[in-house]
């Protein structure tokens, strides 16, 4: 993917807290583990040399445990925290070089953010929360309320426009957060652990909501989460962070099929593989004593979705891509994967 | 120039309030009523508004109240402001918040303020102030030589209390009063500890109790003060000294007789109105003051007590207004 046609291009981004952050970047100290770096220089590197590209319309997930630097990373992208060095290019413009005025303009029109604790303004009605970015941009009341009402419909908040945030449930509050982020019709949305504070059932609903909105509106999204299931569910691609650095980046299937190190492997251990991997990953050549059943499934099918086809067949099922047969799967292969899933 | 700033601040406050009020009503009807009513002051030339410092002792109240009543009858607007003696009051006069001290015991402490033009001395008020150290009469009867300061140390043990650190307890006047007790103790080489009593009433309590229970006590007192008529006290004789000589200030042996003075702000002199006349001419005797003070102490409202004296001495008052 070349830089010119990506929505966001992040290059060598660093964020170092401490007495003299500039001196760390590029020095040999930068490679030190976190504790040693602090011991030696008093600095903490929250984001280390992060680079990635996000394609237009893509949902890019940054995943990591708390303290891994993912929240700092997303704040660096929007300059809520000033990064120490690197570049963040959106639509050909380096956000880090923007003047204060230009940065405000970008924030008002080009990108928006959804927060873990919602960040709603308790003293304002739902409609005025949603219209806030338009308000600070000087849009008149009639227009901004008209736009807010559109977005209210979009996220399913009909009838709550006049309510106050404290009168809504957590899930509803985050719908307001989503609506607010959508109100300016941004190019990019940053979602910082948007559903972590919600109950599991509501979390699922909200994930579906985000996927629906993404399908309808096609927004580019950078989605931060610590929940692998969520990452797998909403993400087109996933970057896993640890100690401020990205340890692996790829599609869900790539991460699970080929974890880059023990850390990623540990992470993905509990994921039911049949739910993530495609049949391609377990296709194997036909053994000498086997005869193909004559049935076939496309290579991009998720294993789980091929269950019936595999189990119903009276022999190995072919995995095909176009006209090519990539390999075969037997019910035994399938059961081994499902049964032994937790042992990798 | 300075006045302008004050005016601006005041004007902005009042403008805001007046905006609200004027929409509701015009001028205060109460004023029309007041000026329509016939008063004695009607023919008298206009008199300004003045603030009189009120010191705590009752004799002062008597004098100040008499001036207040006469001034009010002559159309002056009088405010009474309780304040401590001397420095605090002089500073208040310099700030323009006090216009008259009718009985100053400072012994010329005001000179510095007078030099700056903040305070003007307008003569004696006729009272002679004598501060001294007193014992209840029964002590003077029982120990005849005690009234000579040279013999005080002999009796020091009688005066020891919990508060006096093994020496004789020497009850000093309140902090706002003219007191030199510690200077006297050291100058006369006395085996006593000065104890601050905080208030005049406390001294009254001490002496009343000492007289009634025949307990020993030595304390600060002064004339003119009507209290001496109720509880007889004997004054201790100390070696005299020259009060006005600053060289002797650290070796003061006794309080002098002090002609009490009247101090005014320059505003009073400049106005040259009824109030100016009254305060310049006011003078009366210790007996006059004690008479009014006695009434006040017995529970008469000070204004009523003062008016009683004014009515009884109409000719004297008329003389002040000339």
């Amino acid at each position, binding site marked *: 993917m070349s830089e010119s046609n990506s929505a966001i291009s992040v290059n060598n981004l660093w964020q170092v807290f401490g007495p003299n952050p500039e001196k760390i970047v590029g020095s040999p100290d930068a490679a030190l583990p976190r504790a040693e770096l602090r011991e030696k220089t008093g600095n903490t590197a929250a984001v280390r040399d992060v680079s990635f590209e996000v394609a237009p319309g893509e949902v890019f997930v940054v995943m990591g445990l708390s303290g891994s630097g993912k929240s700092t990373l997303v704040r660096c992208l*929007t300059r*809520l925290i000033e990064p120490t060095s690197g570049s963040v290019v959106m639509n050909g413009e380096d956000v880090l070089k923007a003047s204060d005025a230009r940065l*405000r303009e*970008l*924030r008002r029109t080009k990108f*928006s953010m959804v927060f*873990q*604790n919602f*960040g709603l*303004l*308790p003293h304002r009605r739902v409609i005025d929360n949603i219209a806030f*970015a338009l308000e*600070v941009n000087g849009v008149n009341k009639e227009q901004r309320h008209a736009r807010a009402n559109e977005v209210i419909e979009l996220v399913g908040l009909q009838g709550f426009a006049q309510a106050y*945030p*404290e009168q809504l449930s957590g899930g509803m509050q985050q719908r307001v957060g989503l609506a607010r982020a959508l109100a300016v019709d941004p190019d990019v949305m940053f979602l910082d652990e948007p559903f972590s504070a919600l109950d599991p059932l509501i979390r699922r609903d909200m994930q579906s909501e985000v996927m629906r909105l993404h399908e309808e509106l096609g927004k580019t999204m950078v989605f931060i989460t610590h929940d692998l299931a969520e990452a797998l569910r909403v993400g087109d691609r996933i970057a896993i962070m640890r100690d401020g650095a990205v340890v692996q980046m790829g599609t869900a299937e790539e991460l699970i099929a080929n974890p880059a190190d023990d850390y990623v492997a540990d992470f993905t251990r509990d994921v039911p593989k049949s739910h993530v991997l495609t049949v391609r990953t377990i296709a194997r050549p036909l053994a000498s004593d086997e005869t193909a059943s004559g049935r076939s499934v496309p290579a991009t099918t998720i294993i789980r979705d091929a269950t019936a086809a595999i189990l119903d067949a009276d022999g190995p099922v072919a995995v095909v891509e176009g006209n090519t047969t990539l390999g075969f799967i037997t019910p035994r292969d399938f059961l081994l994967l499902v049964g032994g899933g937790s042992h990798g | 120039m*300075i*006045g302008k*700033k*004050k005016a601006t*601040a*005041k*004007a*902005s*406050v*009042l403008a805001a*309030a007046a905006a609200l009020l004027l929409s*509701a*009503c015009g*001028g*205060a*009807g*109460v004023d029309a*009523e007041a000026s329509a009513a016939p008063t004695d002051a009607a023919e008298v030339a206009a008199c300004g508004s003045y603030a009189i410092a009120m010191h705590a*002792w*009752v004799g002062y109240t008597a004098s100040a109240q008499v001036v207040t009543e006469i001034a009010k009858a002559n159309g002056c607007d009088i405010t009474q402001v*309780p304040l401590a003696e001397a*420095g*605090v009051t002089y*500073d208040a006069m310099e*700030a323009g*918040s*006090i216009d008259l001290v009718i009985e100053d015991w400072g012994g010329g*402490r005001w000179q510095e303020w007078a030099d*700056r033009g*903040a305070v003007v001395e307008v003569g004696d008020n006729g009272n002679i102030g004598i501060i001294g150290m007193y014992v209840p009469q029964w002590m003077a009867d029982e120990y005849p030589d005690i009234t000579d300061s040279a013999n005080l140390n002999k009796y020091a043990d009688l005066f020891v209390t919990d508060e006096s*650190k093994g020496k004789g307890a020497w009850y000093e006047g*309140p*902090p*706002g009063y003219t*007191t030199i007790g*510690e200077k006297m*103790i050291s100058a006369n080489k006395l085996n006593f500890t*000065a104890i*601050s009593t*905080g*208030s*005049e*009433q*406390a001294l009254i*309590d001490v002496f009343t109790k000492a007289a009634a229970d025949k307990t020993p006590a030595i304390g600060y007192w002064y004339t003119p003060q009507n209290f001496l008529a109720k509880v007889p006290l004997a004054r201790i004789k100390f070696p005299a000294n020259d009060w006005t000589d600053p060289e002797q200030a650290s070796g003061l042996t006794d309080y002098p007789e002090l002609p009490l003075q009247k101090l005014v702000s320059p505003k009073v002199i400049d106005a040259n109105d009824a109030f100016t006349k009254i305060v310049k001419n006011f003078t009366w005797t210790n007996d006059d003051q004690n008479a009014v003070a006695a009434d006040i102490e017995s529970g008469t409202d000070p204004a009523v007590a003062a008016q009683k004296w004014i009515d009884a001495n109409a000719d004297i008052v008329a003389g002040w207004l000339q």
Partner: protein
Amino acid sequence: MSSTKETMLIAKPKKLKRSWLIAILFAAWVVLARIFQGQSTLVLAVPEDTGVTTWAGNVAAAIRANRSDGASFKYFFNPIREFIDGFVTGIREIIAIPAGDSSIPLLGWLGVIAVIGFVVYAVSHLRMAITAVILVFTCGALGLWTDSMDTLAMTLAAVIMSLLIGIPVGIWAGLSDRALKAVTPILDLAQILPTLVYLAPLALFFLIGPASATIATMVYSIPIAVRLTAFGIRGVPVSPVEAGTSMGTTKIQLLRKIQLPMSSRTIILGINQTVMAALSFVVIAALIGAPGLGKPVIDALIIRDVGGGFVAGIAVVLIAIMLDRSTSAAISIDESFVPAPASARRRRKLGLVSAAVATIICIVLSRQLAWAAYFPEQVNISKPVANVTESSIFWITENFEFLTTGLAKAVTVGILNPLEGVLSNSPWFLTVAMISLLSLILGGLRSAFITLTLLLAIVASGLWFDTMVTFTQTIVATMLTMSIGVVVGVWIGRSNRAERALRPILDAGQTLPAFVYLIPMLGFFGPSRFTGIATGIVYSIPIVVKIVGQGIREVPTNMIEAAISTGSTKWQLITKVQLPAAKKSLLLATNQGLIFVLAVVVIGGLVGAGGLGYLVIVGGSKPELQGKGLIAGFSILLLGLMIDRIAQYTVARNSAPKH
């Protein structure tokens, strides 16, 4: 597991060692003080000066001499004073003193009451408005209408100016770390400084009168406005601020649309605190010419008119309750951001409109008709109130002499005099050494160093003896305060019913100006050191009880449950679990108690307690002792700093994690 065991093994002997050290220190101190009794005490008679006080007197004289034509006065102090004087006079002319050529203020009494009722109704609710009206009317019925209005006007003027300065500075300190760092030491100092200390230096520059009283009040109340505003701004949750920033707000928009509305509750609390501070200061500022209720209070202290002073004290209390309740009612109405339903809003609008109409009618009446302009003299309950007060205090002192005099005597002879023997009547170097050593044991090396420096500064000031007199009274009052405060604090910490019953009394106790307490105490105990001590105790008990009670309440439930399940008795529970666990609160309460007591003990100079407070007051009225009075004020500050530093270091040392 083994490491905890080790810590316990080490910690226990160490703790034992410290308390032994303190005991040995005290024993040595008492013995040495006894041996050297009365030597090198640096006692200084009231009229005597030292090098430092003479110098201060000369400086003061030079400043006074500069007043008439010095540039600093001409172009700085006098314009400020004139401006404030104009502002204060303007406010007073609305409610308290005749406006311009008129014979009444802009508002007659009926108008004032109506406006107060309307304003309180507008910021809170009807019941509070009625209460406020009754309270203010009672002030009039106590025969103190004009004085009450003057106090109200002075408070209002000082509060308006304090907020105009304090809130912007507070916002700045809330937004900028550097600003906060710059103002924090000043705010901390202001918390330690007893009110009496402000008066003399300010009088030197702004003279005596309503203007300087207002300036002094502002100096006292601005830090409170700053502190709470900054606290409010900093207390706004991060995510709405981030959300606002991420939506491209400018700094002004962020402040106006997010930070200010969301911190409004804390800022209103700050206004409440500022109002109460200003009120309590306006009362004491009568010493430098503030008009209003402080005058009769001070008058009553000087001529010991207990009944009259008590009446004025009641009026202060009524105004304090009115101001406190109505400003805090304004907070509780805002508890939720959701406005009332439309029907209630309509009703309230109707209520406000009709109240406004009634208010305007009252204003008109109060300017047109004499009965509505001048508070009716027939309504006067001051005499009976004064008489009842005087006779009941008389009755108590007569019939319970063994209690009042006995208590005073027991404390004076049993605690005060022996302690004075150790602190002020022993050689100064012994006291300096012993206090520094104590500070070393309690707070560590830094604490000892600071203590030593401050003590030597006091010695250098020449007012060592008087400082130790004041210090002794402060310690005695604090010891008594703590012994009562801890018992009551434990009680309300353990019993919800006690908490509910005492809370209003504690709240009320905290809002009253210290000055007001002096009067009944003077009635009970007469002018003596004990009167100052008793006032200090009464004034500081509420804060001590509150802190201790909260500390006991915050002891984790699982600790208590664990103790109960092992069969502890109630007494064991309190002494072995709750009090040790609330140690930090106890230390904090002691610190606060000391500072509160110091502020009041100093005022005790007015009622015969001697010490530094007496010198401050004498210095105000005797020009030749002004230098000494100023240095006495400075010594109070040094003493307060020393107490605070020792306490802070002790707290820090005790709450530091043990290794």
